[in-house]
Structures are given as structure tokens and as C-alpha cells.
């Protein structure tokens, strides 16, 4: 992953090695994983037959019940 920083900003951090390292570390963190983790950690609200129920899962399975339909 490539990160483009402005010339002015590069000059500002050029003598701050630790700050520069931290900034680059943040900038190169995998965005997809962060978003994915957030999604998995969040609670999803499903509304089933007008009743809201919170679920930690992001998926619903509709299966054949004991009723004929």
C-alpha cells in the first residue's frame, strides 16, 4: 500500500522519526480488517414479525419449521 503525504507535511515530520513511524503504521493498517472486525463486534438488530431482536450474528437462517409452512 502506498501513502501520499504532502510536501509540507513531510517536511514537518522529517525530523520526528518516531512520529513518522507511527503515522505510517496507522496509514498502512489494513482498512478491510478494521471494518470487518467492527462489523463482527457490533450488534445487529433484526426485526422479525414486527419484533426487534438484537443479535451478535450478522446472518439469519430461515429454516423449515415443524409447521407445514
Amino acid at each position: 500500500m502506498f501513502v501520499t503525504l504532502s510536501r509540507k507535511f513531510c517536511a514537518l515530520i522529517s525530523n520526528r522519526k518516531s512520529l513518522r513511524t507511527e503515522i505510517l503504521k496507522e496509514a498502512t493498517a489494513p482498512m478491510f480488517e478494521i471494518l470487518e472486525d467492527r462489523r463482527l463486534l457490533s450488534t445487529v438488530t433484526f426485526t422479525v414479525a414486527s419484533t426487534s431482536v438484537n443479535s451478535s450474528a450478522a446472518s439469519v437462517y430461515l429454516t423449515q419449521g415443524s409447521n407445514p409452512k
Partner: protein
Amino acid sequence: MDVRYGSQFGTIQHTFTGTADTDVITSPSSGVIFNQLVRAAGTPDGGITVSAGSSGTLEVDAGPDDQIITVTASTSISGSVQLTDTSANVDGISSYGAGISNLTLRTNNNIASTQPVLGGTPASTDGTLVNVPSLVAATTLRIYTGASTYDLIRLGGTETVQNAQISTGAGHNAVMLYTDGDDSTTATIDFGAGSGSGNGLGLGNELDLFGGATAVLNQIGSTSHTVVVDTVNVNGGGTLDVAHASTIGDIEVDSLGTVVVDAASTIITLNNNGTTHVQAPSTISTLTGDGTTEFTGTANPSTVSTVNAASGILTVDSGATIHITSDSTIGTLNVLGMVDLNGSVVGTPLAVTALTIDSTGLLDIGKSFL
């Protein structure tokens, strides 16, 4: 119908009981997945309706008796899928509303013995017919046939279907892509790794392109494999792009068809009456037809065992070396790279009606004769 979270074997959260109702499940969240596992005969008369905040998925899995899956409606904010149990003559409707941008269809893993006929009622021995005559471009379609055999997947016709992904190939499965005449149905198809013995051919899977449809052969998923398909028919302006290493038994290209081989591949028979560009090192056992076949520089080296194209055009671009190993007949041969018969049996004849050798070209007939 029961509702469970996270797993089809999870705790039942709710049970719908009205046989004539419409069962509604919604979520305001993004990225949720609705797995619809209820067979047609168990679907309430009013159907099932789902919706999500955004980027949601509806997956519809056919039951053992559901032999037809049809996308019956598709707009940018809604759509519906119909399962049909032909033996009980029952339909089950799954509808989706706003926020569902992914549609996944799975057939029932049945081992069948005959293929359904388009427009007909499948016999009990038939595989499943998956029919998607039209789908808005905003909806991403994925189709999986798993262990099912003799399934028939038909995309496009009424309108088009774009960028579909199809994983199939257990045996005698066919994919047919149609267009509506003004734009193109496009799909990426993975026929799987084949039989597992020899060159993997013999499972009888087939791809048919009609009226400008475009198919891309590619690996879907992370399991590394060569894509194997027995028969490909490129009809009426269709385009086949071989984007991943493939083994293909027979490619039939009509006068308006185009084939582009972008990955190293093995083709047993290429009957090219249209246009074929071979752009990666490949092996073709038999090349026939009246069309134009070009080997570009990136196809170096490639082998054609036999060319039997008395009216065909074969062009070998600069940078490419093509080995011809058996008796061959070519209408027009344009050599800008190298054509090499040096490895063929002594006395192998190469018959050419019109021969052009460019300044960069080389024709090495070895101990054969021209």
C-alpha cells in the same frame, strides 16, 4: 418457518405459523446475510420478504424437490426469486427489498441423470434449471451448483445479467448466456478442477454463448486449480476469455465469435471459424476452421500438434515461437515470429496456400517439407 441467528442449527428465535401469511424479516444494518433454506412446499403462500440497511445478501437454497429456481423480478430496490417443486406443483417466493445488493442461488446437490429442457417441466430424473432472464446491474449474482449434476443455468434473454459469478462443474452441468440484443450478459465461470484423473476432462460440462454474451473462465475461491470444461460453444458474437489456466476439450467458434486465451491453457480441439487470440503459452492438439488465429508474442512458446485449416489464417506475431508437430494444412500463414517444425517426425508435410514471412519471421521446417 423458523428463524435462527448465526447458524442453521442455532437456537430458534421465532417461528412463523401462518400458512397463508407473508413472513417478513428486516435489519437496518449493513452487510447482513439472509439464508433462505425453506423449500418451495414449506414457503408460506404470501412468500418471504427480507430487507437490510445496505449491502445485504439474500441466499436462496433449493430444497431436494425444488427443480426450478427463477429470478422473477429485479429492480434497483427490490426483486424476487421463485423456487418451484415440480412434483408437487408448488411455488415458493422469496422477495427482497431495499438494501439487498447481493443475490446467491444454490441448487440442491441432487445427482440427476438428464438435463432439464428450457421452457419445459423438469422430469424427476432431471437436474435443476436456474433461470435468470434479467437482473439489474446493481445486484451481484452468485450461483453455486455444488455436487449437483445435469443442472442448466440460463442467464439473460429478456434483458441481461452482468458480472455474475458461477461455480459449477460436478458433472454434465451447462451454462448458457444470452443477451437482449443491445447489451451483453457477462459472467465469470469456474467449472472446477475436472475429473481428477488424466487431463481432468470427461465430466461433460458445457458452456454456450449466444448473441454477444461474454464469459470469463476463471478460478473462483482460494483453492488453486486448473479450470476444466469439456465443451465451449461461442455463437453469434459471443466472447470467451480464458483468464485462468484451463483445460478445454472442444471450443467451437462461429464466424462472429471471439476467443481470447489470456492464461496458459490446454485445448484439445479448437474449431475456429471466427477470431482467436492466443496470448499465453498454450497447447492445442488440433486447430481447424476458416477463421483467424493469432499467436501473440506473449504466447511464446506454444504448440499446435495439427493444423487442418485449408481456408484459415494463422498469424504468428513477433516474439512467439509456435511448434507444429504433425501433418498440417494452412490457408494463409503469416510468420512474424517463428514457426518451428524441427521437432516433428522426419518428412512431416506442411501445406500452405499463401505464405508471408516478415523480416522478423522465421520458418524452420527442419527435416519436414513444405
